[in-house]
């Protein structure tokens, strides 16, 4: 079932329009308070927007003019199931009865409802738990039962609100794989904070910020070429935003001390970019090198991020293909065998030994360098 959705909620500053194709899974990303849960609760029929319209297949979920008057289907007539962070299995019913609840509520005879419930428990891999009470099963198992329960009611739209967030690290991967299998060919919205969920489960992603859609597109496009700081942070890449100049470089929107020009970013251009276009430049932190003196100085020796990038293993001071950004280190964060050196919104991954050699610490002035080949510019 395809979905057309548009709704406004004044007090929350929520104004979102979103089309979802039949059988498509869309990941909803965004910082806390961006309106992700509002989107789901409006679709589920638990929150009435001020105005808006939603059509699922050929069923009008709501059609409210200004003032909130108009059609409003109650939750139980929508064919929209919601799966929350907590499994919220009914504690007084067994796993099987929980799954059979949806069919029973729609008038399916008891025996048939139980047969369907058994089949769904099998499908999500927990058929042996049928007789157990929710209090007697683990979080990962409970979430599987909750998935079976949501699907057994044969929803035309499935809403998942951070379905893996409450699971421990060991239980999440198996449940994620199970979700990928059951979500194939299903119309669904998945709210998530996890980029892996977006890549695994979703065909497209929508990024919400402050109640509005700021980015929308195929998962890979949005996360590989982020348009917002939030998406860049989620994809763990650096995003510099600027304007294309006549010289074929991107002049970054970085505030500089008076008298100094903003740095020009040399980058590989994707698609047509003309002078004056707004552009985003995306660089992986592992491709960024750190030095403490300006590399044009005689004694400068750029420090490189690691073995992943052989092109950068020899010093290329004043290389025209190299961009050097003056930064002030704000934070050092150990990540596995590398240290992430943050300077405001930009980050570089550097070997711990180099951090010690350069005596890097918050407040130290340094240079971040990267090659044009590692910087991808695209139209915003």
């Amino acid at each position, binding site marked *: 079932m395809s979905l057309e959705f548009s709704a406004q909620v004044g007090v929350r500053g929520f104004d979102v329009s979103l089309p979802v194709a039949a059988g498509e899974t869309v990941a909803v990303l965004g910082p806390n308070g961006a309106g992700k849960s509002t989107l789901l609760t409006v679709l*589920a*029929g*638990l929150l009435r927007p001020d105005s808006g319209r939603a059509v699922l297949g050929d069923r009008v979920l709501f059609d409210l003019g200004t003032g909130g008057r108009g059609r409003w289907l*109650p*939750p*139980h*007539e*929508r*064919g*929209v*199931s*919601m799966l*929350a962070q907590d499994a*919220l299995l*009914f*504690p*007084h019913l067994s796993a099987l009865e929980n799954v059979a*609840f*949806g069919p029973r*509520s*729609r008038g399916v005879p008891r025996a048939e409802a139980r047969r369907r419930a058994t089949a769904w428990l099998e499908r999500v891999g927990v058929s042996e738990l049928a007789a157990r*009470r*929710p*209090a*007697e099963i683990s979080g990962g198992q409970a979430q599987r039962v909750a998935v079976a*329960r*949501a699907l057994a*009611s044969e929803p035309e739209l499935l809403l998942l609100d951070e379905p893996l967030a409450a699971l421990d690290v060991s239980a999440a991967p198996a449940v994620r794989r199970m979700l990928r299998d059951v979500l194939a060919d299903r119309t669904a919205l998945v709210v998530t904070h996890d980029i892996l969920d977006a890549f695994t489960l979703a065909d497209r992603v929508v990024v919400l910020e402050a109640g509005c859609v700021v980015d929308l597109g195929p998962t890979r496009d949005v996360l590989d070429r982020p348009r917002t700081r939030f998406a860049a942070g989620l994809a763990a890449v650096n995003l510099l935003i600027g304007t294309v100049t006549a010289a074929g470089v991107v002049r970054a929107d970085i505030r500089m001390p008076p008298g100094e020009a903003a740095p020009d970013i040399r980058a590989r251009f994707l698609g047509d970019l003309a002078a004056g276009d707004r552009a985003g430049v995306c660089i992986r932190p592992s491709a960024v090198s750190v030095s403490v003196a300006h590399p044009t100085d005689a004694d400068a020796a750029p420090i490189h991020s690691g073995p992943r990038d052989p092109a950068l293993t020899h010093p290329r001071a004043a290389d025209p293909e190299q961009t050097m950004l003056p930064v002030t280190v704000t934070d050092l964060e150990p990540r596995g065998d590398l240290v992430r050196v943050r300077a405001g919104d930009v980050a570089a991954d550097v070997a711990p030994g180099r951090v010690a050699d350069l005596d890097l610490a918050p407040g130290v002035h340094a240079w971040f360098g990267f090659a044009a080949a590692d910087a991808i510019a695209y139209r915003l």
Partner: protein
Amino acid sequence: MAVAAVGAAFVLLPLVAMVTRVNWAEFVPLVTSESSLDALGLSLRTSLTATALCVLLGVPMAVVLARTEFWGQRILRSLVLLPLVLPPVVGGIALLYTFGRRGLLGQSFEALGVTVAFSTTAVVIAQTFVALPFLVLSLEGALRAVGTRYEAVGATLGARPTTVLRRITLPLVVPALVSGAVLSFARALGEFGATLAFAGSLQGVTRTLPLEIYLQRETDPDAAVALSLVLVVVAVVVVAAAHQAGRSGGARLRGPS
């Protein structure tokens, strides 16, 4: 600690004092006399009926108070709980002017040939009046504590509101319902003032156990003490039952942790 011990002694000492005054040799004949058995039987019958009425009226009231919002709801809640703080005898007089021969509704009943005041029905009404807030209060608290999350899930699974109420909301608050009903029963069993004012004291018709005890105190203190002990035992059993209901219900929801 010391203050707590004094408090505990304050509660327990009168019971001990009463037990020491029980005439054990005459105990069985005293509590099985005709008037005693009449009073005990009447008390149990009327209290059970009143409890059933409390459940019947109290469950919808608690659901409405906990799950809806309307103008004047806070005032209504205070009014519903009024019998808790009202002196029972005042409640009895209020009931008399409602259901009595010349009362607000009593006149209509009278026209139909039904006399409510000073009948067993009056006993049940008086007991329901004072016991109802106990059930409403404990059930409303439980409904608020359980929250609406399970109900929302039920609705998105396609259950209409009545199905949600029957299969989710009520089963979730069964422990509170049981303990609330037990408390109501206990309150109904001990009811004295409203019963006396509204139903009078006719043996076998309106003279419940507390009334019997009060009357016997004048003529036969031994019988009064013996019957008091019976009432204490019933009360202890009831409190234990309520406690048990709350615990096993809680354990059922939380699981064997």
